[in-house]
């Protein structure tokens, strides 16, 4: 056979059609991957249930408006919580469990987002409902309720006893942790939404509950817990109130009794009092009847107090105070720890051993209680507490309460949650049932489901301390945009697709295409499950085909 011309060669079979036309390998599959939105453990850790990974994703993608909206849907004040929140979200983070790395510094990112969007106006309220709601107290609970009630379209008037709005944010927490101008600008933003905030009006003195009920469709009361719990010891009248001291400091009138000061108690108020005194030049000893393990202060506050040079005397219980020409003599008794009490913390037990210590001034900060005098007896329980349902409803159908008033001293974010929850309850009560969907969170993504291989492993970046001239200037700074983007790269984005493309990259069948997010071509996906296993945050899950075909 001659093979000189192409026609001399034998014919060979040639495949010209794509496998795509006829080879539907999706038929091989018994399980199918589906993209879902699952709850992250940081989200369940946050008392407000903030959808953390979703807004981190928005930040990375440059959608700050959307990040701000999704955050403020559950917390109107990221600038504030981004500074002072005890960040339970970070305690829930899967990263330490999965890798041993430190948690993502969510609070610092929240602070950055809050500062970046400080000038963004809040959304326009819903159309007017014609209902007018009164809010008493302008702490985080009152302001949060006012915000959500206003967004719902109600007319809102806030009545505040003090000269400025903000509650503990303005008059309790010192400026080096939360500068007053930040609180003022958040209040101004609320006023721009049409919220009427009237300061210098005290419930009980200037208006009564009955007055408010007569002129409003509902009343939300969040007057906080401002009464110092009295210490029942000899010479208690010689003590200064820690909270009153902070209030005067926040009004620019700090008065230090002398160079040697003591603070009784180890909660947040005690830490702030001690640190302020240090900043004003005094040496400070915290007297606490239990130990560091039982102290109620937020851990970081304690560490910062240590950093400021505050001395702690553990298992030390003041039993008497006496005045003498050289100052105050405090008699303290040494305690030991016994069995846990009803709070779960070990109970301090007296040992009978006492000694005397000398100070120029002693501050009491052993916990605050609420003033219930504006409430008629029928609203109170026999034990003398307000009778409150979880959504803030009381025995008076027109009156809702929340925040520290209802719970005793808690946190800013707890107060914000209480305000939002009460706003929803009031909205329902006023006849708008459908528009607030229930937002219960589902079971969070477990650490074992995540895949940390593709995230950036680097040290955590937190809002760092800065050197300041004035000891009341803010002690830390907001992260830079670059630092925030770097920190977000550490996040596995548990349960939320942040368009990292890992599934697209690894699909051996090219069965995933991209249209803003992954689109799985079920005609061809063989159900190998690689995308599900490699997805860093396990936002992809496998479901049995039987559930699909017999659904």
């Amino acid at each position, binding site marked *: 056979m001659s093979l000189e011309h192409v026609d001399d060669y034998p014919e060979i079979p040639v495949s010209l059609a794509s496998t795509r036309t006829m080879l539907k390998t999706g038929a*091989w599959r018994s399980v199918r991957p589906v993209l879902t939105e699952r709850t992250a453990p940081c989200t369940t850790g946050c008392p407000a249930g903030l959808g953390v990974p979703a807004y981190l994703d928005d930040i990375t993608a440059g959608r700050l408006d959307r990040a701000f909206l999704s955050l403020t849907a559950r917390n109107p004040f990221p600038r504030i919580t981004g500074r002072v929140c005890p960040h339970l979200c970070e305690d829930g983070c899967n990263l330490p469990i999965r890798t041993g790395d430190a948690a993502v510094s969510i609070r610092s990112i929240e602070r950055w987002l809050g500062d970046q969007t400080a000038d963004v106006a809040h959304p326009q309220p819903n159309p007017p409902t014609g209902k007018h709601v009164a809010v008493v107290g302008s702490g985080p609970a009152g302001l949060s309720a006012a915000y959500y009630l206003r967004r719902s379209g109600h007319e809102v008037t806030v009545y505040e006893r003090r000269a400025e709005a903000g509650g503990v944010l303005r008059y309790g927490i010192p400026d080096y942790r939360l500068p007053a101008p930040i609180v003022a600008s958040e209040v101004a933003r609320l006023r721009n939404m049409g919220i009427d905030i009237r300061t210098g009006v005290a419930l009980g003195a200037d208006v009564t509950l009955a007055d408010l009920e007569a002129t409003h469709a509902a009343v939300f009361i969040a007057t906080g817990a401002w009464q110092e719990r009295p210490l029942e010891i000899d010479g208690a009248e010689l003590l200064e109130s820690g909270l009153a001291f902070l209030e005067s400091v926040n009004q620019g009138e700090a008065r230090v009794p002398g160079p040697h000061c003591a603070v009784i108690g180890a909660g947040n108020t005690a830490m702030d009092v001690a640190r302020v005194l240090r900043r004003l030049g005094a040496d400070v000893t915290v007297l606490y009847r239990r130990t560091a393990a039982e102290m109620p202060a937020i851990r970081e506050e304690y560490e910062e107090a240590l950093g400021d040079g505050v001395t702690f005397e553990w298992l030390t219980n003041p039993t008497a105070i006496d005045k003498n020409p050289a100052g105050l003599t405090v008699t303290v008794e040494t305690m030991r720890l016994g069995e846990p009490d009803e709070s779960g913390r070990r109970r301090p037990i007296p040992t009978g051993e006492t000694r005397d210590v000398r100070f120029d001034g002693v501050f009491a900060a052993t916990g605050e209680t609420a003033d219930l005098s504006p409430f008629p007896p029928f609203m109170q329980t026999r034990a003398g507490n307000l009778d409150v349902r979880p959504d803030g409803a009381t025995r008076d159908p027109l009156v809702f309460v929340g925040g520290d008033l209802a719970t005793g001293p808690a946190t800013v974010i707890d107060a914000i949650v209480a305000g939002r929850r009460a706003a929803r309850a009031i909205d329902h009560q006023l006849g708008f049932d459908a528009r607030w969907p229930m937002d219960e969170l589902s079971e969070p993504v477990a650490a074992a489901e995540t895949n940390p291989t593709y995230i950036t492993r680097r040290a955590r970046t937190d809002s760092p301390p800065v050197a300041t001239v004035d000891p009341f200037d803010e002690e830390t700074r907001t992260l830079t945009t670059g630092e925030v983007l770097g920190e977000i790269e550490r996040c596995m984005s548990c349960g939320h697709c942040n368009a990292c493309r890992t599934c697209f990259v690894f699909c051996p069948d090219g069965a995933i295409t991209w249209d803003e997010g992954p689109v799985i071509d079920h005609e061809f996906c*063989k159900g190998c499950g690689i995308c599900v296993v490699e997805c860093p945050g396990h936002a992809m899950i496998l479901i049995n085909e039987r559930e699909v075909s017999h659904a």
Partner: protein
Amino acid sequence: MRWAVPEAEFMDPGTLGCQGCGGALSMRMVLKEVGDDAAAVLPACCWSIIDGPWPLHSLNIPVLHTAFETAAVVATGIKAAKRHQGKDTTVIAWAGDGGTFDIGLQALSGAAERNEDILYVCYDNEAYMNTGIQRSSATPVGTWTTTTPDERPEPRPKKDIMAIMAAHRIPYAATATSAYPDDLARKVRTAVAARGGMRFLHVLSACPPGWKMPADQAIEAMRRAVLSKVFPLYELRNGRDLTITVWPDREVAIEEYFELQGRFAPLEHEPQTVEQIRSDVAERWQALVDRHERTMALAGA
């Protein structure tokens, strides 16, 4: 992490690769970088099947199926014809480990020695998978295959194909795996850019049925091969200058690689083999590190 892997696809879905096929993924990733000005030569191997049955095929480039031992020489011929036509098409010889380490070695050695202008990719799944998991000279010591059953697992260490290619002094050779897509992509780009001579890529490719593991573990297995240093990722220029491209960022014991795969079950009863492998792996890694450092010193780094 944001991937540097191109969006364009040159492999259509509907391939006949098994669920989780590492060989299919290797092809998909390599073609993303090579593009469609290319032709592929497939000797007998799983990929003869994966591309699809007549009259279908999945790759968006011409494919020529050829005899088991001939990948390198057929690619050489096609390249010569393309050159004759005045075209600069990248011609890929795409062969399995059997077609490379064993039966195709003669043709491969000839093409390498002549420094043919082809891109030879060995997708290595460490046995003859297409015919039902028979051992090859790429099968690691201690492995179960149908021809090295549990009672008599593979007795010989894996052949060092990269050393053989280095001995040919070809311009570019590299190891890669699709568990490290950015590294693989960069090596393919380097290989394509080094046109004019012979380029060789040794791509470890998991085979879930042959490795006896769940399909969804394919990427993890390849990743652990690299992290445990059983399959180090490096590149070799002119057979001499060696640079390690992926330095394991965490310790993974060889046992963590083995335990994912049923094919290594015989090792459970052979602690002395495991120790032998451990010292071989450490010794080979150290030799690579030494060569890497020598390369850096020569480059004045």
